[in-house]
């Protein structure tokens, strides 16, 4: 029985909604059943095409996801029959298709497919930039063009990165599996690192005309939530807490004009209170579960900032102490720099300057614009204008981010007289 126009419009809207909420699930399951990313993508496409033809006529199936998975799989079987003469598919796909899947379509085990997909996309055999690109495209469903825009890359460059990564997965037969418990900690590290990279590129854009790229941070938070839901790993919880607490400051970090606002001058009422509340609960949960780790310490630092009602009230001593611990488990010049800022706030600017100069004297961070702008700011605070100007100029020349350059330019003008 054909539906009338109004009903078929409703069905199309329903298919749209299923696409938005389930297409990545269906894709993940198809990758497992078919053993190949590209074949799975074609199957996904065909499955939704079949849904557009059949659902308006037959109604929406009880379990749309299972329907789509089996429709996609049948389309591949059809396609194999049609084109076997010219482009036979690899043998392993035919082997996969011979398996009876009727038991697998009722939801049991299907949740794990998304996790398998994440672990495959973040496999350590793939270069880090390819892990990021693949995760955003295959797990989050972003298009190549969207990812390229977010990372300020040319679309063909990114497209080739994805093609190469998929070829590598196929040729090296990278397994589509959740790692075994003995491998899990290492592999989880690599997944969390990819999510954190995506978040950081969204939160501290490395170059370009805009200070942040919210679409990337949002995807990272979505991925973080997914990991917390799927993986019983305290570190996933800590990373989510960190991202929420950082993200809560986004609207306070820049003016509507796009200009940068320093932490001290940020309007704390602009912070996202829901994110802060959720982040604080997660930090407490994380800290009660285990000892301090890389993400939980940074989340704890972000929590101190988030709890303070203004700059003066920020617990500088507590923050400096947390940085001490962070530095001891994860030595890094950038963390040293952050600690120097906390020490400058706790004690005085000269103490902070001594720490920064020590880092630079080792030859580290000399090309990092934030090391020079921090140094400049501390000199400015104690009225040593010549040194401040010299450092602002260094920072200006090193920065690739337009709002930051404008900010540094203004500082230089202020210090001119």
């Amino acid at each position: 029985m054909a539906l009338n126009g109004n009903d078929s419009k409703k069905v199309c809207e329903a298919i749209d909604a299923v696409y938005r909420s389930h297409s990545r699930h269906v894709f993940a399951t198809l990758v497992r059943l078919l053993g190949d990313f590209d074949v799975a993508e074609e199957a996904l496409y065909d499955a939704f095409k079949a849904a557009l033809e059949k659902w308006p006529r037959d109604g929406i199936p009880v379990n749309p996801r299972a329907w789509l998975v089996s429709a996609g799989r049948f389309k591949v079987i059809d396609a194999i029959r049609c084109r076997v003469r010219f482009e036979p598919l690899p043998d392993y796909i035919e082997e996969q298709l011979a398996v009876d899947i009727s038991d697998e379509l009722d939801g049991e085990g299907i949740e794990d497919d998304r996790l398998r997909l994440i672990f495959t996309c973040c496999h350590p055999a793939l270069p880090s930039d390819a892990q990021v690109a693949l995760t955003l495209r295959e797990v989050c469903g972003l298009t190549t063009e969207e990812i390229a825009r977010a990372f300020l890359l040319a679309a063909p460059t990114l497209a080739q990165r994805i093609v190469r990564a998929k070829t590598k997965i196929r040729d090296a037969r990278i397994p589509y599996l959740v790692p075994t418990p003995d491998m899990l900690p290492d592999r989880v590290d690599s997944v969390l690192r990819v999510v954190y990279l995506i978040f950081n590129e969204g939160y501290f854009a490395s170059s370009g005309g805009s200070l942040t790229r919210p679409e990337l941070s949002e995807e990272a938070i979505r991925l973080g939530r997914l990991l917390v839901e799927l993986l019983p790993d305290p570190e996933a919880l800590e990373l989510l807490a960190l991202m929420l607490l950082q993200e809560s400051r986004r609207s306070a970090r820049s003016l509507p004009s796009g200009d940068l606002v320093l932490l001290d001058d940020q309007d704390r009422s602009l912070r996202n209170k829901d994110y802060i509340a959720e982040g604080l609960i997660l930090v407490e949960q994380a800290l009660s579960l285990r000892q301090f780790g890389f993400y939980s310490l940074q989340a704890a630092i972000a929590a101190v900032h988030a709890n303070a009602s203004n700059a003066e009230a920020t617990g500088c001593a507590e923050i400096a102490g947390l940085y001490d611990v962070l530095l001891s488990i994860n030595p890094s010049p950038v963390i040293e720099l952050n600690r120097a800022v906390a020490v400058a706030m706790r004690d005085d600017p000269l103490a902070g300057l001594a720490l920064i100069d020590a880092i630079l004297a080792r030859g580290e961070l000399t090309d990092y614009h934030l090391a020079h702008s921090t140094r400049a700011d501390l000199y400015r605070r104690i009225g040593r204008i010549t040194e401040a100007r010299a450092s602002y100029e260094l920072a200006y020349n090193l920065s690739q981010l337009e709002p930051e350059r404008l900010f540094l330019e203004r500082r230089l003008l202020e210090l001119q007289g």
Partner: protein
Amino acid sequence: MKYLCLICAEKVMEQMTEAAAEQHFQEYTEFTDAIRTSGHYLGCNRLQPTNAAITVRVRNGKMSTTDGPYIETKEQLGGYYLIEARDLNEAIQVAARIPGARLGCVEVRPVAEDKQTLKALGFVDSETFR
């Protein structure tokens, strides 16, 4: 998004043996059927060989013509498919299945779909500008 897949090959069908050309035609029939069914297909054409080409220029209001294609290369533009794909990587996957990709190469070009272009070409939905 729309992508134009330009098929370039050194050896075009006119230069193949009859049997090879026939098989190639058959492959195109099956590929085109497949992308029609999958919904990627928007349009396609095969072009006559470059010895049928003529290049036109107008300078200071005067037209001049030269024989042959604008670019002299060994590889000739032999035909094209206009396809609809989710993104560049999906377009690449479709392009890789074009039979000509195995003989020569296929250039995948995204179609400009900015507002100004769509308006200039008369593609903008009249309702949005009414």
